């Protein structure tokens, strides 16, 4: 990237800059004539000079010039004879021309400004794109050093002023300079002395002010650095929120940020003071000129050496002078400012010499080449601290071999896998994939054919489906081979792609999935997620979601049918009541009081839990049955019990984890509130306290909280209030969707709809059993696939954090196999799962990895967290201190058994095989 801003701008926008310069030059005569014309109008028709005699005419617009004798083509040229006009018509014509010129020069300005704006914004877009492009190609080690928020703020905020400036970079000085020179030339032509005065003062302004502004720039630079640091710090703290909570560093983090803010304040304040001081000075100098004009010019006019028309013209010309001068100085200031910003950003993006844009080769995805062997010769790898993690490893693997790498943490197995995945640089030796050096393979091939799954997972916020398909977003990034003749051309095309965005493009490489289009996706994704045992969980997500789009009526019918079936089955389960169905005439014991009152799913925010106690409709309905007073007392009782219970317990005690009624942080507030209302009943309590204690009561569920706060009378009253509410809410149900056994509510989750009731508290595994029943019913009614599709649109949250770590690992593995890799490399990829799940998934995976009925298999190199799983693989490598200490073929690999057969065998002989491996390890070490 260019080190100097001007060179960068010039190299990217040469053509446009020259064009706009030409337009500006073309606009100058109009500007000049516009300045000149008032003098003619005043002196001529208005004051009557030259029209002294009756019927006198004057010649206007006579274009002529002389070329001096010492030039070729010398002589007198008469371009246009002009017109002869009388005094009155001269006034009209000249004024008309004036109006015309005003319009023309206005249009010029309009065109110039929009062109500049477009130029600047385009360049800003390009510049941001190029910076982002650079970020994508940082070596991985670089990312451990920079804070993401700092990069974001650099690309987003710091380059922003550049956009405004780029359009002005060359144009503004020419434009303003032209104006200044025109105005000065005009003044000089009118009167040498006044011209010289104006010139001298402009020079003073132009020299002194920029000098004073240097300090301002330095302050500006500091402001930029501190603001960037602030963005980085805040980003980091937000990312680290769990640790802030765990370590109670709230106060420290507040202090930390506030110190940073203070630093910024000091810099910004200094900046303001200096800026306005310079402005003050600048204005002083600018206003000094008119002072001289009035005195000197007035003197000359009185003396008669300067006619009044000239003086007026000079003064009106001068009116146009301070503006451009000031703007030019501002431009200069902006130039320095932006230049500094540019350099600082560029510095960050080229901090290590080896940040080179790797040109993604778009060569045809030739997987046939990626056959044969993986040959590792004399491989050494060092970590960022410089210590060796792999030393002189030599090894040959078949591309389709299933290899386990075992060894303690840090023994080099993970590093080996990461190196093959190109996540770790090779410090010595080679890895050849199918006869070609790993580094020579274009990313276009390794990025499609080698899948990697690590122990830590991160997902961009998206739906499950998008997360699964991330590894297949390749379609369309490869222009035809013919057009990639030169790197420059490729880059130009890439840039054009950055500007011409097709919003409907889905980027999915359907060919790699071997399907025709989006309609086949769900089946394809179901297959991949089944291997990692994630498909049922996806159905579960679907069941726990609301519908975003209204499903087809036949689906709704099926779902209502499912609700009926479930109801029958739950009722048939005589042994134990698992779900308490909603019944409009009865209190639901398993739901909160609030839920009992609403008897529906809140739609508008005014009816959602935290503000419900303050809701007017609710309060009116409660008051009608004096339930507000009763519940207020109930709430007080509950709060009193809780305050008492947790009196000596600190807020971060594990005891608090499961308390849903009151958040521990609120306890002191409740203690105070209880004191306030100790002697006051509902009518005398403050509104805030009424809401507070009603709120507590609203959240109460008897079987869960077991405080004995409810009696039958109260329950009966709640049911009465419920009817009151339903009446008050009216037919349209725009605030609350009332539970209705015959209606599928789009406001509630699918599960709520299916169960149409609450899972009871206190029955062991009730949730699991109910979920199983739901899954069975869905399966029977062929709703499984439908719910799977809904589940695919589950939003996994920032970084995938709405999934637990086990689910994230499953998702990552499913993504890795979905795209049919040639080789799957993995490092502790299932470590978050319990051993039974790990076994099941590994079994499925190894089965899938063997070629069978038309499907190619793939190789696996897996660095295992738990060596007990090693015997499931054909070959086991044992690493220790970066050295390969044993390399054994699993005995089953000799026979022609399928992996499942082998597995069946090996599960029986788990420990025997382990012992064998151990022996071999020992033998090698010895």
């Amino acid at each position, binding site marked *: 990237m260019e080190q100097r801003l001007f060179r960068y701008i010039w190299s990217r926008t040469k053509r446009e800059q020259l064009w706009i310069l030409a337009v500006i030059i073309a606009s100058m005569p109009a500007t000049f004539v516009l300045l000149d014309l008032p003098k003619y109008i005043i002196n001529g028709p208005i004051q009557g000079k030259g029209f002294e005699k009756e019927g006198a005419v004057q010649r206007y617009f006579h274009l002529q010039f002389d070329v001096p004798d010492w030039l070729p083509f010398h002589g007198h040229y008469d371009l246009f004879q002009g017109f002869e006009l009388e005094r009155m018509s001269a006034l009209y014509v000249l004024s008309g021309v004036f109006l015309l010129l005003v319009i023309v020069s206005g249009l010029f300005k309009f065109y110039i400004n929009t062109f500049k704006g477009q130029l600047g914004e385009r360049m800003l877009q390009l510049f941001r794109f190029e910076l982002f492009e650079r970020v994508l190609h940082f070596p991985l080690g670089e990312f451990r050093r920079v804070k993401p928020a700092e990069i974001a703020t650099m690309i987003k905020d710091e380059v922003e002023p550049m956009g405004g400036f780029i359009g002005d970079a060359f144009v503004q000085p020419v434009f303003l300079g032209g104006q200044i020179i025109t105005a000065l030339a005009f003044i000089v032509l009118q009167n040498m002395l006044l011209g010289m005065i104006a010139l001298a003062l402009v020079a003073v302004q132009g020299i002194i002010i920029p000098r004073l502004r240097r300090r301002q720039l330095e302050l500006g630079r500091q402001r930029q650095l501190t603001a960037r640091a602030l963005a980085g710090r805040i980003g980091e703290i937000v990312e680290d929120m769990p640790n802030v909570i765990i370590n109670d560093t709230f106060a420290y983090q507040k202090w930390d940020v506030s110190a940073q803010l203070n630093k910024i304040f000091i810099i910004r304040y200094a900046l303001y003071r200096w800026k306005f001081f310079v402005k003050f000075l600048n204005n002083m100098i600018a206003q000094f000129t008119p002072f001289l004009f009035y005195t000197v010019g007035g003197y000359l006019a009185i003396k008669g050496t300067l006619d009044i028309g000239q003086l007026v013209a000079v003064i009106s010309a001068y009116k146009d002078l301070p503006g451009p001068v000031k703007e030019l100085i501002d431009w200069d200031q902006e130039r320095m400012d932006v230049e500094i910003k540019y350099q600082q950003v560029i510095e960050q993006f080229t901090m290590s010499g080896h940040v080179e844009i790797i040109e993604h080769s778009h060569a045809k995805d030739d997987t046939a080449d990626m056959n044969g062997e993986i040959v590792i010769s004399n491989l050494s790898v060092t970590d960022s601290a410089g210590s060796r993690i792999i030393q002189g490893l030599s090894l040959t693997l078949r591309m389709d071999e299933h290899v386990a790498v075992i060894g303690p943490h840090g023994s080099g197995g993970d590093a080996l896998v990461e190196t093959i995945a190109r996540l770790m640089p090779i410090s010595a030796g080679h890895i050849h994939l199918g006869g070609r050096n790993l580094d020579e393979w274009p990313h276009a091939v390794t990025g499609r054919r080698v899948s990697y799954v690590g122990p830590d997972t991160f997902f961009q916020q998206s739906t499950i489906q998008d997360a699964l398909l991330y590894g297949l977003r390749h379609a369309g990034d490869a222009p035809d081979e013919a057009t990639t003749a030169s790197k420059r051309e490729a880059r130009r095309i890439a840039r054009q792609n950055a500007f011409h965005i097709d919003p409907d493009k889905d980027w999915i490489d359907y060919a790699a999935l071997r399907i025709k289009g989006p309609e086949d996706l769900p089946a394809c994704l179901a297959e991949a997620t089944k291997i990692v045992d994630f498909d049922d969980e996806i159905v579960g997500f679907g069941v726990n979601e609301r519908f975003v789009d209204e499903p087809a009526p036949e689906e709704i019918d099926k779902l209502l049918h499912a609700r009926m079936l479930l109801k029958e089955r739950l009722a048939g389960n005589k042994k134990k009541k698992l779900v308490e169905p909603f019944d409009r005439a009865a209190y639901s014991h398993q739901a909160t009081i609030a839920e009992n009152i609403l008897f529906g799913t809140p739609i508008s925010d005014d009816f959602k839990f935290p503000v419900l106690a303050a809701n007017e409709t609710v309060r009116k309905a409660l008051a009608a049955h004096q339930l507000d007073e009763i519940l207020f007392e109930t709430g007080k009782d509950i709060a009193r019990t809780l305050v008492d219970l947790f009196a000596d317990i600190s807020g971060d*005690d*594990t005891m608090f984890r499961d308390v849903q009624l009151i958040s521990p942080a609120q306890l002191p507030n409740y203690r105070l509130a209880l004191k306030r209302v100790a002697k006051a009943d509902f009518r005398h309590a403050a509104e805030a306290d009424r809401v507070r204690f009603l709120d507590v009561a609203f959240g109460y569920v008897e079987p869960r909280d077991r405080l004995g706060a409810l009696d039958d009378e109260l329950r009966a009253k709640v049911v009465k209030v419920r009817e009151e509410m339903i009446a008050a809410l009216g037919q349209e149900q725009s605030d609350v969707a009332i539970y209705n056994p015959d209606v599928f509510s789009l406001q509630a989750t699918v599960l709520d709809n299916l169960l149409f009731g609450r899972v009871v508290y206190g029955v062991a595994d009730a949730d699991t059993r109910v979920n199983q029943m739901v899954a069975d019913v869905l399966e029977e009614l062929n709703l499984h696939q439908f719910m799977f599709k809904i589940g695919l649109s589950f939003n996994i949250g920032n970084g995938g954090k709405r999934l637990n770590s086990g689910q994230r690992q499953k998702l990552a593995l499913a993504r890795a196999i979905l795209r049919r890799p040639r080789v799957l490399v993995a490092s502790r990829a299932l470590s978050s799962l319990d051993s039974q799940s790990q076994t099941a998934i590994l079994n499925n995976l190894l089965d899938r990895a063997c070629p069978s009925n038309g499907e190619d298999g793939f190789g696996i190199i897996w660095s295992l967290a738990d060596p007990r799983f090693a015997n499931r693989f054909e070959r086991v490598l044992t690493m220790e201190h970066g050295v390969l200490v044993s390399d054994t073929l699993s005995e089953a690999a000799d026979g022609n058994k399928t992996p499942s057969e082998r597995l069946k065998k090996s599960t029986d002989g788990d420990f025997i095989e382990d012992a064998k491996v151990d022996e071999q390890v020992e033998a090698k070490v010895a």
Partner: protein
Amino acid sequence: MALLKDDLEALRRVPFFSAVDSRRLRLLAFTAPRFSYDEGDYLFREGDDGDSAFVIMEGEVDISLPIDGKEVHIARLGKYDMVGETSLLTNQIRTATVTAATHVEVLQIKKGQFCDLVRNSPDMGLCIMQNLAEKLSTTAHEFAALKSKEVSA
């Protein structure tokens, strides 16, 4: 329905908790969920990941171990006994299977709560140690008896 105050009464009678001060016990009674099992339901099975212990409030449970593919009954525990605490202490999978022999009501004590209790009531820790030591010596005796039988056979 059993309410908090009933649970509290019951907890006071659990030998394990005799050393725990009543304030903590109340807290435990409040935060620990209460579950019911029907006869024949598993509380947990050998090999499961263990994340909680259970105090039996009502009914009886059978403890068994799979030996050579068959479930071998080892012991029956009843009201106010605690099961499942071993895997909380050892961080390992369940070493035995616990089945409800009758209708059973339990309080579930999660791992974090359990550790908190032990940390805050050293006497309870001691109680658990004694209990485990007793179990160990019983096992040792039984083992010795088995061995001598083998030798004599």
